[in-house]
C-alpha cells in the first residue's frame, strides 16, 4: 500500500482500464490537451494518444449521446462531464437513452458506458454550478450510481464501473480530489463491487449513514462524539444504486439508531430511500426515529455563510445524532 490522492487514484483507474481494453476510450471537455479541468486525466493523452483520449467541444448532449451510440456497437466509453452540473445539459442521453435501451430493445442492446466527473456542491460556485445529482440519476431505473469517498474506493469503483455492462455514473467528490489515502500498488488489481457499502468506523450507539463528501464530515463528527461518550458507527454507502441493504441493516440492528447525512437536497433524496428501507425491514430494531441531515431545500446561494447554512455541516449532524441518542 502507498498513499496517493483521490485524483491520482482516479487517474490510475483510467490508465489501467485504457491499458487493459482497447475498446475503452475517454472523452470529454478538456480531458486531453488540458489534462482535465481538475487534472484527473493528467498524462493520459501522452500515453494513449488522441484516438483514445478525446477532447470535445462544449456539447454535453452531443458527446454523451455519442458515447451511448458507440456503446451500442461495442465500444466502452468513459464520458467525463467537467462537472455533473453540466450533465444536466445531457440529461436526455443519460436518463432517456442510456438506461432504457436494454428494455426497449428486448435485451438486444445493453449500454456499457461510464459517465463520470465531479459532483456535488464545491465552494461558493452558486446555484447553477453546485448540483448534487445522485438522487436525480438514482431515480432512473437502468442506471447504476456510485459515489466514492476515499482514493481506494475511487479507484476500485471506477474500474468496476468501466467493466460493468450497464450504464454507471461515477460521481466523484470535487472537494476530495486532493485528499489522500492508502491504495494498493499499481500492479495489484483494485476492484470494488458496486452495491457494497463499507463500514468506515465501528461503533455501538448510533449508525451514521453517509457517502462522498459527507464521509469525512461524519468521521470528524464521530471523533467529537467519542469525547461525549457516544460511539458512532460510520457506514459509507459507496454505491447509491444498487444499495447495500445488508450492511445498513446490520449496522442499525447493532446500534438501534440511525442518522443519514447526504450532500444532496432532501426532497425524494437518497436519505428518504434509505430511511424507507430501514423502517420497512427492521422497524423493530429502532429505538428512535431516523434523522436525516441534508441540504436545505433551496437553490444554492453564493454567499459563503449562507452556503454553509444550506449545506449539511458538523453542527447539524451533531444535533441530529444527539437527538436520536436522546443525549
Amino acid at each position, binding site marked *: 500500500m502507498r498513499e496517493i490522492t483521490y485524483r491520482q487514484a482516479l487517474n490510475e483507474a483510467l490508465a489501467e482500464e485504457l491499458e487493459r481494453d482497447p475498446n475503452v476510450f475517454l472523452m470529454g471537455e478538456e480531458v486531453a490537451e488540458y489534462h482535465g479541468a481538475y487534472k484527473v486525466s493528467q498524462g493520459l493523452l501522452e500515453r494513449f494518444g488522441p484516438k483514445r483520449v478525446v477532447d470535445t*467541444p*462544449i456539447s454535453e448532449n452531443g458527446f454523451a449521446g455519442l458515447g451511448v451510440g458507440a456503446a451500442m456497437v461495442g465500444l466502452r466509453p468513459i464520458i467525463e462531464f467537467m462537472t455533473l452540473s453540466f450533465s444536466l445539459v445531457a440529461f436526455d442521453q443519460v436518463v432517456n437513452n442510456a438506461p432504457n435501451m436494454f428494455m426497449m430493445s428486448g435485451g438486444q442492446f445493453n449500454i456499457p458506458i461510464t459517465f463520470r466527473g465531479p459532483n456535488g456542491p464545491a465552494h461558493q460556485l452558486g446555484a447553477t454550478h453546485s448540483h448534487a445529482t445522485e438522487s436525480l440519476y438514482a431515480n432512473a431505473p437502468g442506471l447504476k450510481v456510485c459515489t466514492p469517498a476515499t482514493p481506494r474506493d475511487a479507484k476500485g469503483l471506477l474500474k468496476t464501473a468501466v467493466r460493468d455492462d450497464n450504464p454507471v455514473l461515477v460521481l466523484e467528490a470535487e472537494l476530495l480530489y486532493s485528499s489522500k489515502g492508502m491504495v494498493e500498488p499499481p500492479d495489484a488489481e483494485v476492484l470494488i463491487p458496486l452495491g457494497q457499502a463499507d463500514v468506515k468506523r465501528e461503533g455501538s450507539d448510533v449508525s451514521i449513514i453517509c457517502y462522498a463528501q459527507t464521509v469525512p464530515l461524519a468521521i470528524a463528527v464521530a471523533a467529537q462524539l467519542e469525547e461525549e461518550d457516544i460511539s458512532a458507527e460510520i457506514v459509507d454507502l459507496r454505491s447509491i444504486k444498487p444499495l447495500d441493504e445488508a450492511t445498513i441493516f446490520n449496522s442499525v440492528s447493532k446500534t438501534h439508531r440511525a442518522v443519514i447525512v447526504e450532500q444532496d437536497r432532501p426532497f425524494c433524496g437518497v436519505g428518504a430511500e434509505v430511511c424507507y428501507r430501514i423502517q420497512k425491514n427492521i422497524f423493530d430494531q429502532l429505538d428512535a426515529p431516523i434523522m436525516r441531515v441534508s441540504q436545505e431545500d433551496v437553490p444554492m446561494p453564493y*454567499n459563503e455563510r449562507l452556503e454553509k447554512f444550506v449545506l449539511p455541516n458538523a453542527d447539524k449532524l451533531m444535533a441530529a445524532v444527539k437527538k436520536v441518542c436522546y443525549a
Partner: protein
Amino acid sequence: MQRAEQRDEVEMLALMLLIRRFEERASQQYQAQKIGGFCHLYIGQEAVVVGAVAAVRDDDYIITAYRDHGHALARGTSPNACMAELFGKATGCCQGLGGSMHFFDKKNHMYGGHAIVGAHVPLAAGMAFASKYREEDRVTICFFGDGAINQGSFHEALNLIALYKLPVVLICENNLFAMGTSVKRSTSLKQIVDRAEGYDIPGDIVDGMNFREVRDKLSEIVTSIRKDPHPAFVEIRTYRYRGHSMSDPASYRTKDELEKYRLDDPIIRLRAQLTREGKLTNEQFDALDKKAKETALAAVKFAESSPELPVEKVYDYAYLNGPMEPGRPRPADLEQKRREGAPAPKAQS
C-alpha cells in the same frame, strides 16, 4: 452633433477604463480570498460590450454568459453593487446570492449573468419574443463566447430566432479560446460567423479591439431591427488577456500571441484615436484613469464594509412568497408576525 459624439466617446473610454480597473481590483481581492467561487475576468474585451452599449438604448435587453462584470458595469450597475456581489454582500446587485457568474440588474435591463454555457441563448429568444409580442421596438442583445456555439441550446435558439424573425443581435465574443480549447479545435467552421448562415441570419465580422467599429456596426444593425424586427449575428473578434478563470495559468497559448493583442489594446486604441483628433489630452486621460482607479478602490471599501444577508433569508428566495407546502409559514408571514411582535415560528426542515 460633433460635440455630442465627442463627449460620448470620452465617456465610453472612461467606461472601458472603469471596467479594466474594476477587474484589476477584483483580481487582487480574489487573490486575497475576499471573493469566492469562480471569477472570470473580461480584461482585453472591454470594447465589445462598451461598443454595443454605446449603440443601443438604455431599455434594450442585454443578456450574457458568466464573464459578466463588464456587461453589468457597462449597463450602469454601480461598481459598488458589482464589487459587493463579488464579496457576497447584501448590497450586491443580487444580494450576494448570485456571485461573479450570476450578475443580474433588472432596473438597468441586464438579464444576467448565466453560467451554463449556451443556456441563455434561448432566454434571449424569449425576451425578444416578448418585445415583438408587445409590439415594442426594443432589441435584445445576446452575448456569448466562441465555446457556446456548439451547444444544442444555441442551435435550437438560433432556429427559433430566425423562424419567428425575433429582434435579437447575437454577439459572439470570439476570444479564440474556450478554456484551453482553441476555436480551431472545437468548431468545424472556417469562421464562426458562418454559423449564422445555416439559419439564414445575416452575419458580420467586427474587430473587437476597435470600439468605433463595434459601435458603428451595432448602430447600423439596431436601427434596421427597430424598423422591422429581425435577427442579426455579429462575430466580434477579441482577446482575453487573463486565464479563463482565476485558476487558469493559460499555458495553452504563447506569450507572443498575448503580447500581439496587448499592443492592440482597445483602451490604448480609442485613446490614440481621440488624442489624434484633438479630443483628448494626456492630462484628461490621466484624470479619467485616476477616477476609474479611485472608483474601483472605493467599491472595494464599500463591499468590505457592507453587511451580509442573515442566513435565514435563504428561505425567502426559493419561491416568491415562500414555500408552497401547506402549513409551512411563508417568509412574508413570518416577517409580518415579527413586526407584530409575536415570537417567530421556527422554520421547518
